[in-house]
């Protein structure tokens, strides 16, 4: 009896769209909430390193004197902790996942504009 019910379901499936997608030919669709990867608007960042301290997987390194902010995208667990903790709101969670890579490398961002330049601009 059960086989006939499932047979009906299977027959119906022949006339429906497939439940799967032909990835990567068809791009995956993400929702607005999807937790993919972290990006930092480095020029807005104050390099306060709260994100680095709060990160449960220690994926973020901040070097204030060197003006660099770096993240290991493969260590990041997309938990949103840094985004919530950021006082400047410069961290954003993108829906796109980190692209595959053959090596695990830090993604380093260098802050170009800084307090010194602002001070010079103010003096002028």
């Amino acid at each position, binding site marked *: *009896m059960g086989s006939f019910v499932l047979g009906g379901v299977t027959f119906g499936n022949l006339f429906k769209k497939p439940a799967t997608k032909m990835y990567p030919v068809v791009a995956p669709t993400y929702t607005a909430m999807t937790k993919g990867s972290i990006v930092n608007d480095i020029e807005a960042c104050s390099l306060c390193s709260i994100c680095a301290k709060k990160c449960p997987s220690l994926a973020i390194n901040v070097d204030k004197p060197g003006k660099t902010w770096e993240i290991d995208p493969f260590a990041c*667990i997309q938990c*949103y*902790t840094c985004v*919530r903790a950021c006082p400047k709101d410069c961290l954003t969670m993108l829906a796109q996942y980190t692209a595959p890579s053959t090596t695990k490398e830090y993604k380093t961002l260098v802050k170009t504009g800084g307090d010194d330049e602002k001070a010079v601009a103010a003096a002028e």
Partner: protein
Amino acid sequence: MAERTVIPFGPQHPVLPEPIHFDLVVEDETVVEAIPQIGFVHRGLEQLVKKKDYSTFVSVTERICGICSFGHSLGYSQTIEILMGIEVPQRAEYLRVILHELSRVHSHLLWMGLAADAFGFENLFMQCWRIRERILDIFEATTGGRVILSACNVGGVYHDITNEELKGIVDVLKGMGNEYSKLTKTFLNDGSVKSRLIGVGYLSKQDAIDNCVVGPFARASNVAEDIRCYGFGGYGYLSAFEPIVCEDGDGYGRAKVRALEVLQSIDIIVELVSKIPDGEVMVKVKGSPEDGSVSASRLEQPRGECFYYAKGNGSKFLERFRIRTPTAQNIGGMTKILQGCDIADVPLNILTIDPCISCTER
């Protein structure tokens, strides 16, 4: 009397989903004794409480298990809230139960797929997993993650799910219900499924009580034990809750209990969505657990009762955290049902209790 032979089974075996080893003592084709051994994937997560503060540790508890990940974060948060005397907003309690019941639906659908796969019913396996995918889509749309949700922490839940989104979830579940009832009919009435499950791995009520088994494994042996009955957290807002029990005690009974629990979970979600109050979903948590404070809580995971214990030491790091997972409790019953079974039924018997060895190893 036939000669006794010991057959090693696992931890790597084509039919085993998880790393557990059995020394099967067999006489001809019959298993007379099964000696289990675990410890292949032990991660020492409980010890990590000394290195991660109590609010960060929730990320660790979520990774105890990939299937009941939300349940573990909920159980941990609940324990710490008792430890620190935090009152969670009502809306957060409702949302937690809704997410937890969705986890149960997807866990049971996953098990039904795996069980169908184990007895070679590939079509049913794929139908179960196709339906399960919708639950994962709900998770992705509401919390951002498909498996690890990172939605719950001490004090509530991070993201509010709007009332419109909740209505959308109910619509999806109701739409799913029709397809799911067809699957259940197949699962419970199909001749090939019945011939593979009926009478296999029988556990009597007395044996279930003696071996302290929990969850659907116990309920299939007519032990009406479900932590949801006690009204912990948001379960207290339900109008009525009766655990689903079955008198069969065999693999078919366990399949039946799980199949019906999916419908029960859908009913729970529908009821809570109709009653959910508005308000905050997270309270700000300050301070640390007091020195010497202890707390314990219980939660009904998809696989059964899970017990949590926490001890504070005055700092933001806990002194001790312990989890007793359902599968750890069910291993005794599992060895019991393996005694006297046919050697060809061993994989299926192991599967019918829905083991999660990685949970057990923590």
